[in-house]
């Protein structure tokens, strides 16, 4: 690496309670380069960013900026040392104007009053450079996602950082917006700015980075110049040994003469329009699409959380869409929400209480009494079956993310649902738990359940599903199955909405990840 690093991190370690997020992280970012950090969800990328931003304090390790060892105890100190962080979840105030967002917390004053004119003057040049042509007095909520990302970027740039840190900056951006962001970043690099680009998207990292560091299990496992790396090398480093064993072999479905199915025809509402498909019992139907492509809306409709505006749906029980989640649960339709903490768990209550959610909470048959004894028995059964490392009366917030997700699955399994909608079931959990959850998905399908699986990881979809429906801007852009079911095809569809024209042989990719 040329020159002395502008920022370096050595032997960084960080634990949250019992969870090790970083164990021995090293990183050197050179001046005037774009350095990418890539790794799977849960590899520790976000924690690294939080440490650098001063949000959390590491347990051990050193951070050097320039030739000075620093302790970043707060976000103000991070700023002072010239670290500007742009977060993954946009931290803007949607109801306030662009200007108000740009200068939040340090509004320029004139005669003791906030001066918007001053703000405009200070930000004009920068916004022009970023090619952000928006009404700066309009609320940020009116902008599209790409513009919002640029506003956030501009907010950091206004403080002239020495190192710009971007945490999954384009997770909500479409192709065009991403290209624009990359152009901006290259321009910044040309002016001598260093950028730390944290992502789990291979394509993006290869498109933008000069150097790549791969993280796995809280440590750096590979650092090299991009030119010296192939995608296959990076994938290998990201997933390590688990690659082959992560996805269990397919199970053969129990042969049955009647195959119940869901038929969806011309379904519209929310962000989706004219969606049609059929899903049969015993198969896993994958759903892919960027955030905002409509898959979330589809799942909400199928679970009764959102009203449809048109189209017909027929569930295996012969009825249409449920009118409420309660009706859905009573009809054997389950949803595993993507946001497990907010929508899936009662964190301060026991495992037994949580696992009883549907049996005692949603269903209306059986006894009007609630028996803690029965709840504990049910919980013990699920804990055993799903290999959850805890006891029925322990509070759920004492569990690891993977075990928490198993609790959410367990509460549906207790009711033997006919249809399961899984919204990104392996998001943000440890590899071992992932494997167990993948095996469970297979098993549920084999037991005759209709499984609809949405995932943000194309490799999950291609490995677990029988077919994958790709959504793009609220429509089904294509269906991928059989020999076509490759990660690359799915990714292409997700980002462009079109099938790749010709399946020309690409650079050799490894094994099941291809």
């Amino acid at each position, binding site marked *: 690496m040329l020159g002395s690093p502008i920022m370096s991190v050595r032997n960084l370690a960080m634990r949250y309670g019992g969870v090790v997020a970083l164990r021995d992280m090293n990183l050197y970012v050179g001046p005037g380069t774009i350095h990418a950090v890539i790794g799977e969800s849960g590899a520790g990328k976000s924690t690294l960013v939080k440490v650098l931003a001063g949000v959390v304090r590491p347990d051990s390790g050193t951070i050097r900026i320039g030739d000075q060892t620093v302790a970043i105890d707060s976000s103000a100190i991070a700023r002072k040392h010239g670290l500007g962080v742009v977060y993954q979840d946009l931290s803007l105030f949607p109801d306030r104007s662009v200007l108000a967002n740009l200068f939040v917390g340090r509004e320029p004053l004139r005669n003791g009053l906030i001066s918007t004119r001053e703000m405009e003057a200070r930000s004009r040049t920068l916004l022009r450079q970023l090619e952000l042509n928006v009404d700066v007095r309009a609320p940020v909520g009116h902008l599209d996602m790409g513009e919002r990302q640029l506003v956030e970027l501009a907010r950091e740039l206004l403080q002239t950082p020495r190192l710009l840190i971007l945490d999954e900056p384009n997770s909500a951006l479409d192709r065009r917006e991403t290209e624009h962001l990359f152009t901006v970043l290259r321009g910044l690099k040309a002016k001598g700015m260093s950028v730390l680009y944290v992502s789990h998207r291979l394509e993006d990292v290869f498109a933008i980075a000069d150097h790549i560091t791969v993280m796995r299990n809280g440590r750096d496992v590979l650092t090299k110049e991009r030119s010296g790396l192939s995608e296959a090398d990076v994938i290998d480093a990201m997933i390590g040994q688990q690659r082959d064993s992560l996805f269990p072999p397919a199970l053969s479905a129990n042969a049955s003469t009647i195959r119940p199915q869901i038929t969806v025809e011309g379904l519209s509402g929310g962000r989706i329009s004219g969606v049609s498909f059929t899903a049969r019992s015993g198969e896993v139907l994958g759903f892919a699409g960027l955030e905002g492509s409509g898959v979330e809306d589809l799942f909400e409709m199928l679970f009764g959380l959102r009203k449809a505006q048109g189209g017909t749906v027929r569930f295996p029980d012969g009825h249409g869409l449920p009118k409420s989640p309660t009706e859905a649960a009573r009809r054997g339709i389950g949803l595993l929400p993507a946001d497990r903490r907010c929508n899936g768990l009662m964190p301060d209550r026991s495992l037994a*209480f949580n696992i009883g959610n549907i049996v005692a909470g*949603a269903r209306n048959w059986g006894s009007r009494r609630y028996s803690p004894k029965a709840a504990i028995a049910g919980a013990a059964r699920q804990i055993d079956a799903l290999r959850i490392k805890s006891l029925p009366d322990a509070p759920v917030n004492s569990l690891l993310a993977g075990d928490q997700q198993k609790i959410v699955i367990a509460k549906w399994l207790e009711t033997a649902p006919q249809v399961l909608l899984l919204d990104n079931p392996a998001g943000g959990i440890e590899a071992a738990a992932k494997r167990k959850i993948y095996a469970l998905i297979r098993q549920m399908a084999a037991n005759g359940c209709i499984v609809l699986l949405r995932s943000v990881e194309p490799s999950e979809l291609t490995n677990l599903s029988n077919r994958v429906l790709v959504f793009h801007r609220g429509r089904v852009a294509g269906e991928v199955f059989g020999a076509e079911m490759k990660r690359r095809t799915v990714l292409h569809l997700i980002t462009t909405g079109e099938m790749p024209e010709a399946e020309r042989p690409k650079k050799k990719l490894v094994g099941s990840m291809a």
Partner: protein
Amino acid sequence: MTRLDPTPPLAGSVAHPKRSFRLPAELGPLAGLVVLVAIIGFARPGFLDQANLLSLLETAAYPGMLAIGMVFVLALREIDLSVGWMFHLAALLTAFLLAAGINPWLAAFAGVLLGAGLGLVNGLLVVALRLPAIVVTLGTFAMFRGLAAVAVKMQTSAPADQSGELSQIVHGKMFGAVPTAVFVFVAMAVVMQFVLHRSRFGYRVQAVGSNPQAALYAGIPTGAVRLQTLVLMGIVSGLAGVLWPGFPVTDADQGGGFELMAIAAAIIGGTSLSGGRGTVIGAVIGMLIVQVILSGVTLLGIDATWNPFVIGAVMLLALALDRLVKALRQRQAVRFQENLHA
């Protein structure tokens, strides 16, 4: 609260973290009550007279019933400010009907029904407008209070007919010495504790209060649970009002102030303000603590005008304790996890 049963052996080779025996949560408030009674009894031995204690129990019974209902509302992560005036209106209606010579049982039924109706108004507004109950009941609090004032003004106060069957029961003593209201209070506490912890309805109340969003995603009928709980609160308030001896004092503050007492008692007893957890027995103890303190204040010769101040202060003290306990529990959870994964 429901500590039961040896757990079945776990799969795999996980070491069993040692489980410590957990004491019932109501023990803390109970200890507080005992200490208070001891202190006041020591300072003013007359306090420990059987008659004095029974009258204290009776004073505790009316707001105590409201506190029992309030436990459900708080466990739902809501709060009902209108309870005092639902109580007052039910008491007024019953007294009017008795004075008009209506069958006492019918009058009592009408009072309870009125309470249920007022609770239904609260519940429908909460569910239909998707507003927090604290906002809705702030409005209905003022409305019910106004209604009570109007009703009193229209009726040129007729003292209740004391000869009715109901009045006899209400004013009579059961088993020789126990006032009826106390008997109903205790019976209600036992039944409601059971309902909260051993019925599907109670489970749902706790689930919705623990995380309303997760409850919705689990298919729990959250709207229905909210409605039912607020109606239950109305019924409880109505029942307490019906039992109120005679005509409620026309002073606008009678029954007002009960909401503060009920909320304070529930919180002192260990029901969490952040929802999801509640204990009826704790609320009963909490109400006794409130009453003991108030009567102690009187015995020590402090003017009763100080009462609201005292109740508020005790409630805040209980909240501070609750925070402390939560912080400790959090630490314990972290330690539990570390034991498990170390």
